[in-house]
């Protein structure tokens, strides 16, 4: 079973999106949620705390979600962290690149609570 108290890191440069994802996660039963506004802040936070899941946007500055994903997968301490990309980038090449870089799942914005829940179940297991 999924530990609903596990810490989750959400990464997006839009405050509104952070708020939306946080509220959806709370509605699904998760309670320990941290936020970062770009990849470099997220990476720094991941080095200081063990997260059970990262949900990241792609298009951010200065460090993109894609660069964050590659950095996480290249780090021996962090590489096993489940990683879901939530992005408006919906070209095939983006999805393929993210898959090759080791993303666990990929959600196209805008998305519904049902889609987020389904992907969380796919990545984390039933809850």
């Amino acid at each position, binding site marked *: 079973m999924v530990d609903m108290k596990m810490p989750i890191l959400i990464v*997006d440069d839009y405050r509104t999106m952070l708020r939306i994802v946080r509220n959806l996660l709370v509605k699904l039963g998760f309670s320990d949620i941290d936020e970062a506004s770009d990849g470099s802040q997220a990476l720094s936070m991941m080095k200081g705390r063990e997260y059970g899941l990262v949900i990241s946007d792609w*298009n951010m500055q200065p460090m993109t979600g894609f660069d964050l994903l590659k950095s996480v997968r290249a780090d021996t301490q962090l590489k096993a962290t489940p990683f879901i990309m939530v992005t408006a980038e*919906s070209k095939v090449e983006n999805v393929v690149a993210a898959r090759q870089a080791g993303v666990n799942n*990929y959600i196209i914005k805008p*998305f519904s609570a049902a889609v987020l829940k389904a992907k969380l179940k796919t990545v984390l297991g039933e809850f």
Partner: protein
Amino acid sequence: MGPDDASARVRKLTQECVDIVRTILVARREMGKLHDPSLREIHLPRASEEIGAILALTESATNDIMLAAEDMMSVDFKNPELAAEIVNDQCMKIFEACSFQDITGQRISSVLKTLQLVEKKIEDLEGAWSGASSSIQPAAEAAPVDPDAALLNGPALEGEGIQQDDIDRLFA
């Protein structure tokens, strides 16, 4: 006025005409360098489509939010448990609808880039006409230094990109 004075004035006028023609030719040559078909053929039509998509998305989100609010207004509170469930579900729909802000923000950024491109062209044209043309560079798309930059396209327009179902099949 003697014949020498008249001849000098004709020579001066002729020289001025030659200078004007030369300036026009130089300006035309420099303006030619600024010709960038991608502005008219790609960037401006794309910006127009982005604005259309922004209008459609904001209208859809507004409609979703109002529908959720209307559903909450019609809740029968005689059954508090059911009422709480309906209100909760409708609040989630409002949250989902609010994600339009992210998408429209990215689309507006794309339109802004096109406007900045137009502004740069106008500045370059002014420079070409005012004789500051030597500093003008021919129009060219800047090649992305980072290969991953080619993956930063922003939200797709209708008919572009792939759907969530297609992605799910890739991850199945």
